[in-house]
């Protein structure tokens, strides 16, 4: 759990959020300590509906009347303790309060970014920045005949098998049994790499089309290969890569928001790090 997502979960404590954010603004704008608020705790319709919503969101049902009473009573307890604690100045120099405030600030700074929805133009921009990352992998349709580990005997078998195949004959007697398919239909580089190794996936794309060739080396040994079709890599449309783009955009956006907010705030401060003498 990163600081960011912890901050985000804190922010979903709406009540606390409301109180602290309010106090925070007040403090920052007026330049004095948060006020403990008036010594009158009102449970009005707004408070009740907030408690109700929070409960419903958590439990996917309405609270029973008894539960609602419990929520209200708990709210009052919380307010009493909270305001009294503020009145006593218990928030001052408390490491936890300091850390939670910091998290709140981060949460406030990043909440917009956390919830933001990228437009298609945003995603297109991200896509254009690094088309390689989102490129639809090239797909290859090919047949292969596996000859086993690279050895002089396997190379000899490869020569004979190649002759047979080029004459349109049957070469299965040269094949080593293995749990791989004789033919792959529009397979992407990842799945070819998972079975044969990445170098083989790469080599396939450079082979001539339509005829048997080889031997080609893979992580498994030697193969004869016939590449029937290669669907070239191409930059995807935003729609095709939407999920990955949105996840990346979201991650980068939140990080940027956090860094920017810090930069803007720290501009207003003199930070002095004294060197030990």
């Amino acid at each position: 759990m990163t600081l960011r997502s912890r901050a985000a979960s804190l922010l979903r404590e709406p009540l606390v959020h409301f109180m602290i954010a309010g106090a925070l603004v007040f403090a920052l704008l007026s330049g004095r300590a948060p006020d403990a608020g008036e010594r009158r705790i009102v449970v009005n319709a707004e408070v009740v509906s907030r408690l109700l919503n929070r409960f419903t969101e958590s439990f996917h049902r309405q609270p029973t009347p008894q539960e609602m009473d419990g929520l209200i009573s708990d709210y009052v307890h919380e307010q009493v303790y909270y305001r009294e604690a503020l009145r006593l100045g218990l928030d001052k120099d408390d490491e936890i309060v300091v850390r939670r405030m910091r998290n709140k600030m981060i949460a406030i700074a990043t909440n917009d970014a956390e919830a933001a929805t990228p437009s298609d133009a945003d995603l297109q921009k991200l896509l254009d920045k690094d088309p390689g990352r989102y490129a639809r992998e090239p797909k290859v349709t090919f047949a292969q005949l596996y000859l086993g580990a690279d050895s002089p005997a396997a190379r000899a078998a490869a020569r004979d098998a190649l002759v047979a195949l080029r004459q349109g004959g049957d070469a299965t007697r040269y094949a080593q049994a293995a749990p791989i398919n004789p033919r792959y239909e529009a397979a992407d580089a990842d799945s070819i790499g998972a079975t044969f190794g990445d170098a083989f996936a790469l080599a396939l794309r450079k082979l001539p089309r339509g005829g048997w060739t080889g031997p080609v080396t893979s992580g498994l040994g030697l193969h004869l290969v016939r590449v029937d079709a290669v669907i070239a890599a191409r930059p995807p449309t935003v729609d095709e890569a939407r999920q990955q783009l949105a996840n990346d955009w979201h991650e980068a956006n939140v990080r940027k928001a956090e860094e920017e907010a810090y930069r803007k705030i720290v501009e207003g401060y003199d930070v002095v790090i004294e060197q030990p003498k």
Partner: protein
Amino acid sequence: MRRKAIIAALLLGSAFSLSGCDKIKQAVSGKSEIKVVETEFPERVFWGDTHLHTANSVDAFGFGNRLGPEEALRFARGEEVTSSTGQKAKLARPLDFLVIADHAEGLGATKALYDAPRLLITDPTLRRWYDLMHQGPKGSLQATGEMLQARSQNKLPAGLNDPAKALERTRKIWNDHLDTVDRYNEPGKFTAFFGFEYTLMQGGNNLHRNVIFRDNKDRVAKIMPLDPTNELWPDKLWDYMDGYEKSTGGKVLAIPHNANLSNGLMFMMTDPSGGPMTAAQARRRAAHEPVVEITQIKGDSEAHPFLSPNDEFAGYGTAGWDLNNLLNSQPTKPGDLAGSYVREALKRGLILEQTIGVNPYKFGVIGSTDSHNSLSTADDNNFWGKHPGVEPSPTRSTDGFVPGINSGRMNWQSLASGYAAVWARANTRTAIFDAIQRREVYGTTGPRMTVRFFGGWDFKGDDLRGDWVHAGYRRGVPMGSDLSGHKGAGAPSFIVSALKDPVGANLDRVQIVKGWVDKGGKSHEKVFDVVWSDMAKRKPAGGKVPAVGDTVDLTRATYANSIGAPSLASVWTDPEFDPAMRAFYYVRVLEIPTPNWVSYDAVKYHLTLTPDIPRKQQERAYTSAIWYTPS
């Protein structure tokens, strides 16, 4: 003035949160509706981890894990992430699927304690743990070790798991979790499952289960992870699973793990009270738990030398893990072992079926990591350890399993293991779940070996020529199935074909492990070497195939594929078949010797290690069995 404007802007921004959030969810869930075509039969194997913990797990956070589900998912998909110890981590090869299985018990509780105001922590134990955690990583490990200790003695302070607070916390974490998992689930490319761990224990004896859902968020959001506190047996879990399926129309299964740390309780011959197991009990277990996790970081549960004295390859990853139960609170007696290992459980299943008519232990097998640092790693040359306290460092190979705590184990006893291999018809939640359900799965200790295994009545050597996979499905059954339709005096024949990891070590041999039960109700086992490399030179002597050799260079942590074979295949007919006896057959594939993770560390950090620390291993794959039942 400028500062005021910033604050105002920040606050304004937050007001838009809700509407924006909904849009994101819609956009993403809309995407996951894409139709993925399933192939006629499984054409490729999908690799994954069904058992990963993030910072939401009560112990993982204590161990120092600060990476949540999002980082875990990004890492599994092949993205680089920064580990909790500040190191850059990346998988050389992405996984095809992932189950984040955080502990339901105390979900988020350690984090809540860490974040709590110290003033309000009145319980002296909780306050001590709070202070330790705030001291830094060492203190945090200490606190977590003490928590685990307390858990094993049922002495956890009540405040840590206050039911009402826990419920609300769990709700929040679970709902957030579902959203995150959904954003990374990409049918056809990467499957992110919903799941959790049901951490059932009896005084430190491990009865843990991972629970995995087949369904999408619409169904899974209707329930919450189930807390096992105060339970002794899995019955409540099975009730919960039944309830989920009934109320939502969805599907869910459970995968027991670390039988090796259960002190014989995982695979008992009796019912919980010690009385005979009933057919109904056996049926209930089999229905909910189609597979078992056979290997992981905390040791391997396939076989134990005490139980299988004639199997010279039994005892991989058992040393150290077989002395005590999970929490080191109770020593393991020799009599406990039979209920703690998978091969013995498969045999017990046959005996029970012969007696009560139902086999409770007719399960398949997978491997997984059980990593607690959000990083699913099972490769010895890129192993990130069980938890942040043992992420790569010069001391981790000589540290305790939980540094600073007497966990009863040394960290070098950790295995860089394992992964789940699934023969599914597509990379989707439904297709992978269904393959696990029908047990068409196997486990490896990390290497991505491809293994096919079919049983039938008329397979011949010639079947390996040409399209034998089709033949396997058409005329036989794949791993995990029942072999039926026996006629006359014929013996079952099996097609087995294994292929090395394309970036890994060659194979030493392929074995078929047979278990059976005789008319007197006694079980037996035998390991058959079926096909091995250099068969012409490696002639069996005294019933054993000679060792493959050893090319490991410890000074550089390398090995050479100059021995072994990249691919081994054979058609094998049981020479000792008796149609009157129940039997199972599963495949074990052994690699040639390779350096273990400790050896890679030793080279990387220039370590001098004592000779008692093992430095080499023969990694392996275990398939689900094929069962024969007399008609």
